[in-house]
């Protein structure tokens, strides 16, 4: 294992880096990139390490003071927790950032809520969108909806024609979060989360609009949304059993795996009752960083910089079906290339779930409220959990 390889300097002068990453889909892509990097840098070896339940393993490694040299994680609230605890080195001004989309860098700072520290280097991004079945839309002569009213009108048209407008997968808590992540950001007032943390806003009021719309969409759901899980939703989309699906772009390869011939489209919708053009909900798929106190910092940073070169970015984007962090690299997939303009123009907004305190059971609250169909109950429940979690965290 590469776990202990970093500490001892072998006689031949070869430095071994451990790349600790938590995305099992990325193992093959990283292997190819590592081979190229090692060919260009004969003095450095990189050993990839992907384990199940990577975050728990990483935390226990940190406790034992045995940090990996390079860490690749998903930019979520777990990463935020570690970054805020000061686990990672500051990457402000790192060479790896040259040529990266400033919007991606800002997205990382928004995530960790750190203005003066950059906890890592974002290398790939994802998005949360409305996926639709192009064939079903063409057969029914439907236009792609971009506003809330159009979404409802489209759903009604599909239903009137005897079809299933939406595939909802509320058996899984996290896929309930995916729908909530898509709809919520546009419906919140500017600066809502800062106000919430300052005590000037409440979830009870803030989440009502998004909750009301989620309940309304249940009228256009598949037969048993509370008994359908993520795989069930992907299968329904792959077989043309539903016209629309609110999910992350990571679902695209999963749907195509069931049916390679399915033609999918993606749309960014303005969910609020507003004329303003919508921003795309986007998050950091993989952020690369190094741990404070880990060995071989210079070599580790060179490897991270290698992953942000145009060639590596192309390989990462195409291999993982995600957006590159470089604006000058175009994804080979037309679907992603079409959405990438939002990133290039900086018209993105973060995942609202990343703003939640770790102790809040967001997915569970969403399932409960959707089943009860009471829009006010979501905000009330989450506010109560937020207050309790805030009290625990400030111990």
């Amino acid at each position, binding site marked *: 294992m590469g776990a202990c390889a970093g500490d001892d300097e072998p006689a031949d002068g070869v430095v071994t880096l451990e790349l600790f990453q938590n995305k099992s889909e990325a193992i093959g892509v990283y292997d190819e990139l590592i081979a190229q990097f090692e060919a260009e840098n004969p003095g450095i070896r990189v050993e990839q390490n992907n384990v199940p339940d990577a975050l728990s393993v990483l935390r226990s490694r940190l406790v034992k003071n045995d940090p990996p040299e390079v860490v690749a994680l998903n930019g979520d609230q777990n990463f935020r927790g570690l970054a805020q605890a000061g686990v990672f080195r500051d990457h402000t001004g790192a060479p790896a950032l040259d040529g990266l989309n400033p919007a991606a860098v800002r997205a990382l700072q928004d995530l960790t809520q750190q203005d003066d520290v950059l906890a890592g280097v974002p290398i790939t991004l994802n998005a949360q969108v409305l996926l639709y079945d192009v064939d079903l839309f063409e057969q029914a002569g439907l236009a792609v909806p971009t506003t809330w009213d159009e979404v409802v009108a489209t759903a009604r048209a599909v239903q009137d024609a005897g079809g299933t407008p939406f595939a909802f997968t509320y058996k899984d808590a996290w896929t309930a979060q995916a729908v909530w992540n898509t709809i919520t950001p546009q419906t919140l007032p500017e600066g809502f989360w800062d106000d919430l943390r300052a005590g000037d806003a409440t979830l009870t009021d803030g989440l009502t609009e998004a909750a009301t719309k989620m309940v309304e969409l249940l009228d256009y759901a598949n037969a048993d949304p509370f008994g359908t899980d993520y795989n069930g939703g992907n299968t329904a989309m792959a077989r043309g059993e539903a016209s629309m699906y609110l999910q992350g772009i990571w679902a695209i390869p999963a749907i195509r795996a069931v049916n390679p011939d399915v033609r999918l489209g993606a749309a960014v919708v303005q969910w609020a009752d507003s004329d303003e053009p919508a921003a795309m909900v986007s998050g950091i798929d993989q952020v690369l960083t190094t741990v404070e106190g880990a060995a071989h910092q210079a070599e580790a940073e060179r490897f991270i910089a290698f992953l942000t070169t145009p060639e590596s970015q192309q390989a990462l984007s195409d291999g993982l079906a995600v957006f590159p962090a470089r604006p000058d690299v175009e994804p080979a997939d037309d679907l992603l290339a079409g959405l990438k303009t939002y990133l290039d123009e900086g018209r993105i907004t973060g995942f609202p779930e990343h703003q939640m305190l770790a102790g809040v059971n967001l997915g569970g609250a969403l399932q409960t409220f959707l089943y009860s169909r009471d829009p006010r109950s979501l905000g009330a429940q989450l506010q109560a959990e937020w207050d309790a979690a805030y009290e625990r965290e400030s*111990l």
Partner: protein
Amino acid sequence: MTTSRRFAYTVGAVALLAFFAFHTLPALQGFFYSLTNYRGYGDWEWVGLKNYELLFSDARVGRAYRFTFGFAVVAAVLTNVISLALAVGLNGRIAFRRTLRAVFFVPNILSLLIVGYIFNFIFSSAVPQIGSALGVEALSTSILGNPDLAWVGIVVVSVWGASAVTTIIYLAGLQTVPVEVYEAASIDGATGWRRFSRVTFPILMPFVTINTLLTVKGFLMVFDQIIAMTGGGPGDATRSMSVLIFSAGFNAGEFAYQSANAIIFFVVIALVSLFQVRTMRSRERV
């Protein structure tokens, strides 16, 4: 000291050491962390009994206790009734007795996690498909997606899994009933239900005690099947204490806080077991 005695002490010491290292020490560590604000990583400070104070106003904990105890009582009663019936049946003079005994033991050798995933599929796909094909409205949606009924699915799997061992223990108990007692009973004219309730059951009482104790304790710590079937959902409808402690402790950075929760839960289980032993022991002396 004789050699055999020395041997006994050595073996006992090794067991004691292993028990201390792998059971007592982690428990003490958990207690230690429960007095801090440790998140599982990073710095920590002493916070005294603050974690314990907050526990009593935590709505999640109250709901988890309510689910866990309700579930444990229902599942334990069902397991014991079904197992006792199975044991009596398997103890009778029936064809393929040995084979049937082996078949009914199978649930015990399967991992509950895997069984959970299989039942997850049955409840989420198979049952709704059969339900809608037959036009039965109530069966056409997954009960695991219904906050009011999801616990039924967990109970079914748990009872199915736990009945194997419980049945074996009752079978062993039935072997201890002396034939003479049955002969005396039949001379007195006792048969069927009367014979079971007046002769067999009182003699089986110590086995009822041990089985109730084991099943209640086991069900209070229910974890695997919930992770496999609902993850504690929908909402928190099936979030047992173990699931809450694990998921919030490791995924939500509440390591110290959930350690405190675990310590209290341990005390609660110990008290419940003690209470059970006391009350049921007195009933054994019929």
